[in-house]
């Protein structure tokens, strides 16, 4: 009997094979509980992976669409240099909008570090110019060269230095989520193998009797595999449901763009955990089948 036909036969009740396996209360419950726990964790790992992917996109997009020019000049030249910079930006393709931040805005930026009463006007703080880029972006290198030539005190910061590590961190988190899911699948396989192995060892006499009366290995294996696969499927379905409910009930961190804001599923993303029970069943099927055939090889 091949792997595929065995897998297909799982969905069909087989005459006589189900009843030959005695009730395996503890190991069956262990499989169900393990599958539920692993599915619950898998849903969280999936949510983490999807959230970090979204976060990477969001950070990337947000930072890619803006840039800043810092003008460090003596106070008497600052207005003129700011004017020159805005003029250059007005003529730069790919710059959708450019404006100099006023004192209140600059104060707001520094407030988290120095408090709200900072006398910005008395401090030698550079003038900041905010650039909003067009979707196509602008030639940052060309703009730098032009600024160096015409406004030496102006420095362009296109956020590349910030963006790269942030995106790299988010991508790593996303891979971590995928790695966690792979680990969960392995743990599920290991636990199912142990539970099935324990059930098979406890039922050695059953295997001997079945072989004695002419049962083929496939028949015996299917009886065990079907039982464990369905236990894993139902356990994982419950775990997935619990995981989705737990994610749904997470408090929303609405403001500030905090990390937790993105942890969860949105829209069609809620469909993503649905394959988890079926994948768990596949893992349980393969693990039990392997354990069953290994155990049967020891029975003449």
């Amino acid at each position: 009997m091949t792997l595929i036909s065995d897998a297909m036969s799982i969905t069909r009740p087989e005459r006589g094979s189900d009843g030959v396996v005695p009730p395996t209360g503890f190991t069956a419950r262990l499989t169900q509980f393990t599958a539920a726990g692993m599915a619950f964790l898998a849903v969280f790992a999936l949510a983490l992976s999807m959230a970090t992917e979204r976060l990477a996109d969001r950070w990337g997009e947000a930072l890619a669409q803006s840039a800043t020019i810092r003008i460090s000049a003596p106070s008497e030249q600052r207005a003129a240099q700011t004017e020159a910079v805005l003029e250059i930006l007005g003529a730069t393709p790919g710059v959708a909008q450019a404006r100099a931040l006023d004192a209140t805005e600059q104060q707001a930026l520094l407030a988290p570090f120095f408090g709200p009463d900072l006398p910005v006007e008395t401090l030698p703080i550079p003038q900041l110019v905010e650039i909003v880029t067009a979707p196509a972006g602008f030639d940052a290198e060309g703009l730098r060269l032009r600024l160096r030539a015409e406004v030496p005190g102006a420095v362009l910061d296109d956020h590349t230095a910030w963006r790269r590590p942030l995106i790299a961190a988010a991508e790593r988190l996303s891979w971590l989520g995928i790695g966690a899911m792979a680990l969960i699948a392995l743990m599920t396989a290991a636990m199912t193998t142990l539970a099935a192995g324990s059930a098979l060892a406890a039922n050695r006499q059953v295997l001997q009797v079945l072989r004695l009366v002419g049962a083929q290995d496939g028949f015996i294996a299917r009886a065990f595999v079907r039982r464990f696969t369905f236990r894993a499927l139902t356990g994982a379905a419950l775990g997935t449901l619990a995981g989705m409910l737990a994610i749904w009930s997470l408090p929303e961190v609405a403001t500030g763009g905090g990390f937790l804001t993105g942890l969860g599923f949105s829209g069609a993303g809620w469909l993503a955990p649905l394959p988890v029970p079926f994948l768990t069943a596949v893992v349980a099927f393969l693990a039990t089948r392997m354990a069953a055939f290994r155990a049967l090889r020891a029975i003449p």
Partner: protein
Amino acid sequence: MIELSDVRYGYDGTALLTDINLALVPGSFHFLTGPSGAGKTTLIKLCYLELTPSGGQVMAFGRPASRMRRDEIAMLRRRVGVVHQDCRFLDHMNLRDNVALPLSVAGESLTAHRAEIDELIAWVGLADRAHALPAELSGGERQRAALARALILSPDVILADEPTGNVDWEMSLKLLTLLIELNRMGKSVLIASHDLNLIRAAKGQANARVLRLRAGRLEMAGADL
């Protein structure tokens, strides 16, 4: 159907059986006797391929057993009914389901064979115990149930290891009569037994050959039986 040629078998380097030659052909009836530990059970296990000989060859239904795959051995066992001395059953299934087990593993419908199952159970005198679990059966009842299970697929060869060990004389004769009837239908029967009275009774009714295991070798029993 089953032929052992120069078969040897031993545990841990000690030879238990040596140069065993035995042919179970259609219609043959053999008794196998010998003292405890002589290797009667081992010889029966070699016949239905539960054990692999350390030398010689076992041919089963025309094919060398050493070349059979596990699934082929399983199919072969459906043609060989075995009654074990220890009557192994599935403890969670009742007597009726245990008797019907060979049908289940062969993929047969139990509904279609209902009458056959009930008839066989009634014949071995266990009709009122059909729904009892194996643990609730006496030694004799277990042996009769094991015999019923061995016969349910109407096998070509019947191997019985002390089948009357736990039953009274009346039931022993009844079981023996059944085996003789099956033998007359062309089935090959091999009974391992140390019950000399049973062997003598059988010799009066069937053309039974009596074999004795002595010092690991198989020999024809003499007129002392």
